[in-house]
């Protein structure tokens, strides 16, 4: 009886699940169809008559590979930066005593809650004054340390056994050696969570890459997609090939690293 009622609940959820996934399904199917979307019919949703031409077109037509390259480079460098810097900062907060420790740590928590819209204008001005406008520096440097990452790494490092560090110190290892040779390897699970989350956030990021760049060659994939417009009508099959290439890595990443992604997203929430 109990099993039956559970099965009923499952069946009940199938319709909402289909609804939630429909937009993505629709996009993937139409990125693989020849015809335009002028007069849609329900049978267009069937996976028949599929072709990869739209994907081939967007690569041969324009600077599409530049957008992908920019997105990959920016997300990758920002991720590596965060892995290194959040470990350094998190380690200091976890293990060291120093003046202003409390307010400095609180500052990270406060920044985490501050709505980012407030810095749109001043960051734009600052990046211009620094001469970084429309360059990789603008897309990378301000985002190399993430307050959530500091929080995550401090938490994790605090719970590591201190004896290993002390033994290494007695053997004459310096601070940097301890950080790179002991703390970082021991923190692999936390670094995986952090790295995946930072990569996905930056891969999807739109607002700041959009306001801090101007030229086509500096556009990341989301920015290029948002600014894509044909002259009269939108060329949907080709646009959807582009959006599919933006969405696909995220979905594959999620399916592979589901555990890390879920724990990264809920880590902050459960501590509150």
């Amino acid at each position: 009886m109990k099993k039956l009622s559970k099965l009923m609940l499952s069946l009940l959820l199938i319709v909402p699940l289909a609804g939630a996934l429909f937009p993505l399904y629709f996009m993937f199917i139409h990125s693989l169809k020849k015809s335009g979307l002028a007069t849609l019919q329900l049978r267009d949703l069937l996976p028949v008559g599929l072709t990869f031409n739209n994907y081939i077109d967007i690569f041969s037509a324009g600077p599409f590979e530049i957008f992908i390259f920019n997105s990959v480079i920016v997300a990758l460098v920002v991720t590596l930066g965060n892995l290194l810097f959040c470990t350094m900062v998190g380690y200091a907060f976890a293990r060291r005593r120093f003046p202003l420790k409390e307010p400095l740590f609180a500052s990270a928590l406060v920044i985490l809650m501050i709505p980012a819209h407030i810095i749109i204008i001043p960051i734009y001005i600052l990046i211009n004054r620094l001469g970084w406008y429309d360059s990789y520096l603008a897309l990378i440097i301000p985002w190399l340390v993430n307050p959530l990452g500091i929080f995550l790494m401090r938490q994790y490092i605090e719970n590591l056994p201190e004896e290993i560090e002390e033994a290494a110190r007695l053997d004459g290892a310096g601070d940097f050696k301890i950080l790179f040779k002991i703390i970082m390897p021991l923190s692999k699970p936390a670094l995986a969570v952090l790295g995946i989350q930072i990569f996905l956030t930056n891969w999807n990021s739109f607002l700041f890459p959009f306001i801090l760049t101007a030229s086509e060659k500096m556009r990341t994939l989301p920015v290029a997609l948002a600014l894509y417009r044909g002259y009269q009508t939108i060329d949907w099959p080709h646009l959807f090939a582009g959006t599919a290439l933006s969405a696909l890595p995220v979905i594959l990443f999620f399916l592979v690293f589901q555990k890390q992604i879920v724990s990264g997203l809920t880590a902050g929430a459960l501590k509150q």
Partner: protein
Amino acid sequence: MNLQRSKAHLTTWLFLTPWIVTLLLFWLYPLLHSLYLSFTDYSILSGEPHWVGLENFKRLFSDEDFLKALENTSIFVFGTIPFTTIFALILAVIINRRIPGAGLFRAGFFIPSITSMVVMALIFTNLYSAGGYINLLLKLTGLSFPKDGWLHSERAALPAIMIMDVWIAVGYYMLLYLAALKSIPGELYEAAELEGAGAFSRFWHITLPHLRPMTLFVVVINTIRSFQIFIEIFVMTKGGPLNSTLTVVYFVFEEGLERFNMGYASACAYVLFVVIAIFSAIQLKLFGLGRRIAD
């Protein structure tokens, strides 16, 4: 010994440097700079800022576009969050009962919320178009629909974007609720069951009270996020038709980075900042109060 201590001190500060630089240069300085700019007439095109006192703020509250943006943003926030929260809670409670395919449901509902908002907004632009699937479906069911497409209708555009937001965001908050549900000790339910409490009674007396902190968190972060709605507007409507989807952050973007009225735009951003802070404080207070009464 002393030398070693000061060396340790040095590396401590070296370790902290990335955060101190980021905090000062990319957060504190911009925050203060734009606070200052909000009292000036600064434009990056005209050079030096001039102090204008409260002029920008006065102008804002007689600026019909800004008031419309504030109204739209409020409608968006208060019209979406109750639905997102309730749907997320219902989904999480059902999935948490270890129904067949629970993992599949969890992943399936969550995936739209980690897909880039630009991508989702582009897909929905098509779905909401005159001949899009949403109209096609409504036609089949015989319901009325905006013939020129949802996003071209002054009445339907904002609700369309709101429906989309709930549609996408639910999965993320469902995941947070699932994590909270997992942390409720199973013995509580077993004890209640032994005492003969029914499923509804268990939900009401055990599940709901335990989900209170997560509900507060979910509502607060969703409020902060929703007040800043921008990408959907930029991709789907550019604030139109006739300002019917103009939001505050879109207004900040237009004034500050398209017309370069940076003082005015900063004032607007700060007004929104204060609005968000007030609502977060009220939510924290209300929940705190509710908890004290419950105790």
